[in-house]
């Protein structure tokens, strides 16, 4: 199916290269977050809140500009603010839009026991279907980014949907639409990767960010949300972005060998005891009379 009529050709009040120009949105979508041009205005936070219809939640001041310590079941998009003193005495105030990374190899999906609770679309979006969610939170276990959040009232887990509803209608996600500086881009993975690499080359050539890089971790098969970082060697600086995120080994073992071995064990166990019965039969009770001489 083609979304041709909804592809972006031009943007009003905008000159130069149009981000996402002519991008096909049929498959393989990707968000690019350029942290080097993010100003932490939180427009994406508000857009996410409003599009998804979540209301006010009480917050308290916590010695930071960050809205709350972590994303929440009804707050999926959080800019993480991190002050960092550099070795040359300068300061960095790193702002990173945190949300579901939509892994190509999603740990949440691997860990989820409930049929149809987590869906990975052809376009790369990993979506939660709360109707099928049983609230076990195995997805939390499987996620290397600590994204899924539990609502203790509904007993369901929630997270960023990458606006699958909007994307399905040929629109960009709400956060992208709201971003005033254009640090957020949306398009196909290939296009976003190319755009990100171009920006990284530019940063390396023209700024002091010689360690700039693209964050698209292989450990989870790549992600459908990628970052341009000033310092790709130390992603942890950006509010705990893991350097090498992987679906936890234990989840792999659990959902791989253990599941297999367990299943086999049970089948062969039942078969085994049945064969035992067939071969040896039941035990006999010695009668007293027989033992007496």
């Amino acid at each position: 199916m083609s979304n041709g009529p909804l592809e972006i050709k031009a943007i009003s009040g905008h000159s130069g290269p149009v981000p996402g120009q002519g991008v096909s949105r049929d498959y393989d979508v990707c968000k690019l977050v350029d942290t080097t041009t993010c100003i932490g205005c939180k427009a994406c936070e508000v857009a996410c809140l409003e599009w998804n219809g979540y209301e006010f939640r009480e917050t308290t001041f916590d010695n930071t500009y960050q809205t709350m310590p972590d994303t929440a079941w009804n707050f999926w998009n959080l800019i993480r603010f991190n002050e960092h003193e550099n070795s040359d005495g300068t300061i960095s105030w790193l702002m990173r839009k945190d949300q579901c990374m939509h892994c190509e190899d999603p740990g949440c999906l691997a860990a989820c026991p409930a049929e149809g609770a987590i869906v990975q679309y052809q376009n790369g979006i990993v979506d939660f279907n709360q109707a099928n969610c049983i609230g076990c939170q195995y997805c939390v276990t499987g996620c290397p980014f600590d994204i899924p959040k539990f609502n203790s009232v509904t007993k369901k887990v929630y997270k960023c949907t990458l606006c699958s509803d909007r994307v399905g209608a040929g629109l960009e996600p709400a956060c992208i639409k709201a971003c005033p500086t254009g640090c957020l881009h949306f398009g196909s993975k290939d296009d976003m990767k190319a755009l990100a690499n171009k920006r990284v080359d530019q940063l390396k050539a023209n700024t002091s960010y010689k360690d700039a890089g693209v964050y698209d971790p292989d450990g989870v098969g790549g992600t459908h949300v990628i970052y341009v970082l000033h310092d790709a060697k130390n992603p942890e600086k950006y509010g705990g972005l893991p350097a090498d995120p992987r679906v936890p080994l234990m989840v792999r073992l659990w959902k791989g060998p253990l599941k297999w071995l367990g299943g086999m064990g049970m089948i062969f166990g039942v078969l085994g005891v049945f064969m035992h019965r067939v071969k040896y039969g039941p035990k006999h009770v010695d009668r007293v009379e027989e033992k007496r001489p």
Partner: protein
Amino acid sequence: MTNGWIDIKNTDVMLIMGGNPAENHPCGFKWAIEAKKNRNAKIISVDPRFTRTSSVADHYVQIRAGSDIAFLGGIINYIVNNGRINKEYVVNYTNAALIIKEGFKLPDDGIFSGYDPQGMKYDVSSWNYEEGGDLTPKDATAFAATASVLVKPPAPPAAKGAAVHAAPAAKPPKVAPKPAAGAAPPAIVATLPPNVAYDRSLQHERCVYQLLKKQYSKYTPEMVSKITGADPEKFLKAAEIFTSIRDKGDTKKVGTIIYSVGWTQHTYGAQIIRTAAMIQLLMGNVGRTGGGVNALRGHSNIQGATDMAGIFDNLPGYLKVPTPADKDFGSYTKRITPTSAKPKEWDSFNYWSNTPKFAVSLMKALYGDAAKKENDWAFDYLPKIDRKYSWVEIWDGMYRGKVKGLMAWGMNGVAIGPNSQKNIDALKKADWLVVCDIYPEETSSFWQSPGITEDEQKKINTTVYRLPGAGFAEKDGTFVNSARWLKWKDKALDPPGDAKLDHEILASIFLKVKQLYQQEKDKPGTKFPDAILNLTWQYVNPKVPTFTEMAKELNGKALADLKDDKTGQEIKAGQQLPGFAWLKDDGTTMCGNWLYSGSWTEAGAQTQRRGQEDPSGLGIYPNYAWSWPANRRVLYNRASCDINGKPWDADRMQVRWNDGQQKWVGNDVPDFKVDSHPKDHMGPFIMTPEGTGRLFVPLAGMADGPFPEHYEPMESPVDNLFHPKQNNNPVVKKYTTDRDKYGTPKDGFDVVCTTYRLTEHYHYWTKNNPVNSQLVPEPFIEISEDMAKEKGINGGDKLKVTSARGEYYGKAMVTKRIKALTIADKKIYPIGIPIHWAYRGIREDRERKAGNTTYLNPINMLSPTAIDPNAYTPEFKGFLVKVEKA
């Protein structure tokens, strides 16, 4: 802005200082990001704290709040010493070559010539040009010779009888209006000489350039560092990055300076902006694509408010309000209309010479047929200002019991301060208060402010009327943005409940007042009903005038058939005017604001245009909305070309001289006399009598000196290192009631405090909105880690901040983004406080009902009543406080 938002994308380097656009103008800041991404442009951020803007800057320098002139003066010194000027531009487009009269004295001791210490004001007569001709030495440098090649032969001398004038604003859109000569005796008013002496070699010891060089020679990196607290290396790096565009005589590159209220809110705010303008003139950046001095306005329509007489001594279009000394319309317009003052061989458009046309057309718009030549265009109807009625004066007057009532419209007087307690106490003394707003806010709730007991409330006799107005999304009309664009918007929804459109409320008040005058005009004791009864009010529904009708009035129309003799173009009586060039001083045109003429023509509302074409790729979008004046996007764009009319950078051409057509053409509307040949040497700065940009502001242009000089804020932690005996601005305006106290380090006030806004909030009303309150829930105070350590403060601890005037409470934000500074070998702790909280709002109402009022003080409890003598802006930045754990 001399330029516009989108134009920022065309720049090579940005000096962002006195503003934090990433925080306060995130949508416009996209163009700064575009410049970074598409042009590898550099951002230099200079600020008392490492801000959201600093986070995306290439270079950041921390300075002490209030030390901006020292920093910028240091850059001027750097420019001069390193030859980082555009010589051709400086010689021909600025007044660098003009020679200043003998007797003018630079402020080595902090004071310019002509100071009257008793009256705390200057006699400005020595701040003037010398009369005479070309004093360029014959053996001048080769450069001066080249520059003179195009000088046309001597023209006949300019008309004699130069009028008295008050040196109109060089750049009306952004520089605050200058004080009029006012009620001062007009006996001896100095005037600019029509034939100014000059030296194109810039060698004459009294030429502006040499004086400037001398004035800023003391702003060495060492002194800059001592005064501002900036690391000298970092200062030098900032100066180098910004001025590097003029390295090795390059004139192609361009830089922009972007500022906001971080510069205006000082007792010398207008002079800080002047310093920036001087830098841009020296480097030849004004008038150019990607250049300029760009003021970012703090509200969606503050530019419109200023254009429409937002300040007490202005009429719409920056015309001066008459004073009692103006005996009639003729003497009034003569006073406010400048005549050209320039080197004889040069030309000056002196556009303000059209002032009478603008003024008569305004009178026709105000009073219609009642304004006739015979009755001096109803000049008597206009109010005359006998003294300064600036914002702080009004509250001072009320506190003194002189002002008895106040109508507060779309502004929260108590919260926006300064010195909130004085304002609260002033309202206690008023008879009545009318507030039109969309929320119950602090001003109309002044009697509920923290600390007022129920018994005290009973003793307050002020009658408060609260009128529910309409929010911005509930009305049509135009916004005028920082780029001077008039942009029409349609309302999104109707006002809720009993709320009414603001102008509907105003109209009903006016009609009621008019009715009273009508009924009682013949009764004894009724004074001067004519001004009210004759005010034009020709709207289809007088009770609810439409914005369309008002917008058309502002544009102006012909009152008689008009014909342009040159082009033969005709306009019939009653038709909308195509632009201000058609305005007449004979009563055949009316226009509510000459700057807006052209915005609603016979072709319709230009403000509603949404054309997406940008043929030049420079973001000019000539068919999108409408930019005053005359849809020009970049002011003074003649300066984007060299003296021959060739663009400094052909890739970023704004306009150029087309020799074939014998006129100026280009991507933008030329801000110039369109057929003025480059050889005429007409100055690009058509709004000054000289035609040049003013490095030196002569006469009464600035109240506090022709050159900016570093003065300390009203409350400062150190003595002025340049001249300890003249610490503050010599003509600063202070107040004297018992509520107007000023603190010193000796009294324990030794922390430099600055105030600002956050992205997450908008002034004092978003605390009524759940989402904003969620993003940043409560007041906080940013302090440095070393200060926290010294005082044993942890992040989240409750703090009490005290100034000489009041207290403020909030939670501590301990941050790496603010560092202790060494000022004059003294360790100074700076702190910063966002302004947004007070005692009305979701959380605030809850807390107040629970009796927890301590943490509900407005921030302006702290700020001082001391104002800039030019723009009357209070000093919200850089005052002294002490900080302790609450």
